[in-house]
């Protein structure tokens, strides 16, 4: 900066000075907007070498479906083989690769959660490369999803947001639910705060995007805090039976309840006070 101002001051009267100032002004405004606007996700910290490393990893692990430059691949039938990645942001990469959903084992209705194949450094390199394609949501700062100091009132509010926005697909106990065409909303048990936050932010798979305009960062945090608080509760009623609702309750009523009662009925009917003779004859009759 000092060099730039020094040069300006010496060539103040140059005929192109005005043009330079205007250009510089535009550059600063644009750059400043790009840096500070909420839509921007580019954290300036990603160095060129990280992006380069991410590009190399991308070419090996992702480009077969997403295209060499993340432009996506369309099949001959016009369906998406792998969607374009410009603008999905670092948060999406961190979620998809960080939960093992990407790279996909095979094409299917939905990417499944599985073993994570990249280490943290590689994931951030991939995220930096994808983020360099176009601006998108950045990986959230840990302070945004830290729920240690959330008060009960916010947890209750988080519960209301959860029931309004999430239970329809993820089920009342966040145990997951089915969606049409083999797709599904996964269980939220054992999912880290960061990944829930990123999922809300980027809307992976079938999930809608809950941008900061729809659910403010604090509201997202409250939902996560509610989930953590409910999952830390003891199982008040006993075994949860998969928290799948009345279907699993019906299954247990038949298998265990009726099973046990009929078992006892058989036991009672086969034991009588003076039954030695008659049981033998009955056995003979029904054998």
């Amino acid at each position: 900066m000092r060099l730039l101002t020094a040069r300006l001051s010496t060539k103040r009267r140059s005929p192109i000075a005005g043009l330079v100032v205007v250009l510089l002004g535009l550059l600063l405004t644009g750059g400043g907007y790009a840096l500070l606007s909420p839509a921007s996700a580019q954290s300036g910290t990603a160095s060129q070498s990280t992006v380069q490393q991410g590009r190399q990893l991308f070419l090996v692990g992702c480009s077969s479906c997403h295209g060499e430059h993340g432009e996506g691949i369309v099949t001959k039938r016009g369906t998406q083989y792998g969607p374009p990645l410009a603008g999905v942001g670092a948060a999406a990469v961190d979620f998809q690769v960080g939960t093992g959903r990407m790279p996909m084992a095979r094409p299917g209705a939905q990417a499944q959660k599985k073993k994570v194949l990249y280490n943290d450094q590689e994931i951030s390199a991939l995220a930096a490369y994808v983020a360099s394609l176009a601006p998108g949501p950045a990986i959230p700062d840990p302070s945004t999803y830290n729920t240690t100091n959330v008060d009960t009132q916010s947890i209750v509010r988080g519960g209301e947001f959860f029931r309004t926005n999430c239970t329809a697909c993820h089920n009342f106990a966040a145990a997951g639910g089915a969606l049409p065409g083999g797709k599904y909303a996964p269980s939220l048990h054992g999912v880290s705060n960061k990944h829930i936050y990123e999922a809300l932010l980027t809307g992976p798979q079938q999930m809608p995007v809950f941008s900061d305009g729809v659910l403010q960062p604090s509201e997202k945090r409250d939902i996560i805090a509610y989930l953590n608080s409910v999952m830390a509760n003891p199982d008040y009623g006993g075994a949860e039976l998969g928290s799948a609702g009345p279907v699993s309750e019906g299954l247990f009523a038949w298998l265990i309840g009726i099973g046990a009662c009929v078992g006892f009925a058989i036991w009672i009917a086969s034991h009588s006070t003076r039954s030695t003779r008659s049981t033998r004859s009955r056995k003979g009759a029904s054998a």
Partner: protein
Amino acid sequence: MSTATTNGKKAAQVHRPSKVGQLATWVDDRTGIAGVAKKQVRKVFPDHWSFMLGEIALWSFVVLLLTGTFLTLWFKPSMGEVVYNGSYDQLRGVSMSEAYASALHLSFDVRGGLLMRQIHHWAAMLFIAAMFVHMMRIYFTGAFRKPRELNWVIGCLLLLLGSLEGFTGYSLPDDLLSGTGLRAAGGFILAIPVVGTYISFFLFGGEFPGDAIIPRLYTAHVLLIPAVLLALIGLHMLLLVYQKHTQYAGPGRTNDNVVGYPMMPVYAAKAGGFFFIVFGVSALMGGLMSINPVWRYGPYDPSQVTAGSQPDWYMGWPDGALRIMPGWETHAFGFTLSWNIFLPIIVLPGLMFTILLMLPFIENWITGDKRDHHLLQRPRNAPTRTATMVALMTFIGLLWAAGGNDIMAIKFNLNLNYITYFIRVMVFVGPVVAFLITRRWCISLQRADRDRLLHGYESGVIMRSPEGAYAEKHLPISTGETFALTSREHDDIPAMPSDADENGVANHKVWLTRLRVRLARFWYSGNIETPSREELEAARHHADDELAEQELAEYHDSHVQHDRHGIETGEVGKH
């Protein structure tokens, strides 16, 4: 009988009556109960595990009455809005109905409240499941035949009322699940052409949800339906006592007697003990397994819904029919007829219930059987009847599975749409296939019975003939078993009527009679008749001969071995 009625050697002495005896005399002097009791305590009940299935339903109903009374002491059937301030942190400060708040209060702040709620709910699931199992036993063994058709009808009404009672209870806590159920029920009512809107307005006291439905359902749940249930259960059991219990065929058991144990003391102890067992099973389930965790669903809010919103299991099959129904609607004169809702959830259950209710009368009309039946039939001996019930069970079972299609999809990694397409086809194909397979299966089992009667049971002894062929030795079955297997009524297949009788007078409604005869012929077709007395005697002689032959062979065999043994020892001695 002028001689002594006891084998005792001492003379009888007069004692002062015991305290219990005095009390009994006091009661008897005032009520005359001894005459009735004397007969009833000697009432004989036959012993078989399948006769205790209805008892599971009876005893779980008693458990329901006991736990339900406990719950009414705290539950507030009101839709008035309150702010929750109880022990459950995650809902504190949320606005909700008094009903839901009191359900939370029962669960977290009343000692034993959650246990009672869960026992109540599990017992309700058992109550209806046991009624189903009991009903299937009655049907499969032909226990519904004359004179017990009326008890079949009462049982069907109990099943219907039990399901309604269950649904009203499901809707009371006013959590998200029960509210969703009511929302759905409201929709079903609206789908009824012409009167649907009016019924809905009367039921909810205006638009859904209003503030009247929970108090109204509460009255039905704790007063109206239980009272009718209790009355019908009483009638059901009075008829049982009056008509006496049916029994399976066996030595000494005929159509005119009942073989078993008297009410006192054996059967009373057994039945009383079974009550404690059913109570124990439901208490264990209530203590160990979570059911309807209302606190996790949150208060009902029409803008919310949860994945896995299903009715309790007994309402699962109409729900499944609704889920697989194509979205057919008719728009005419500014009105919408929602066939997609009306057919699966209003028409179908009504139709199925009517079929269930009519089953004894349909069978009776086809077979034209006017006799009294107190001996049960084995399911295999009525193949068409057994196959009919299995076909109905397949139909209901497939719809029931469709009611859990989303849970199946997520738990078994299946495609929800494919499950729907599969069941759409299978509800039509499945029952037919099940009917054919069951019928043939029953007939094969009849054939096996006939073989057993004529050739005996497989002894496991392999015989080698002098030619070197191997065959398994069959031994005759016991006389008791022969009696049980042969005590089958002979099929009474009616003759096809002619257009007119011998005098040329046209037969009245001959087409209907012909249909009936055709159905009756189909009903009995394929039945394997039990062997005649001559056949059985011949078989018995043959078996006796074989037995003698085998005994001879065995005798011979042991002697050969013995000889060999002798030789061996002889050899040892030589060395």
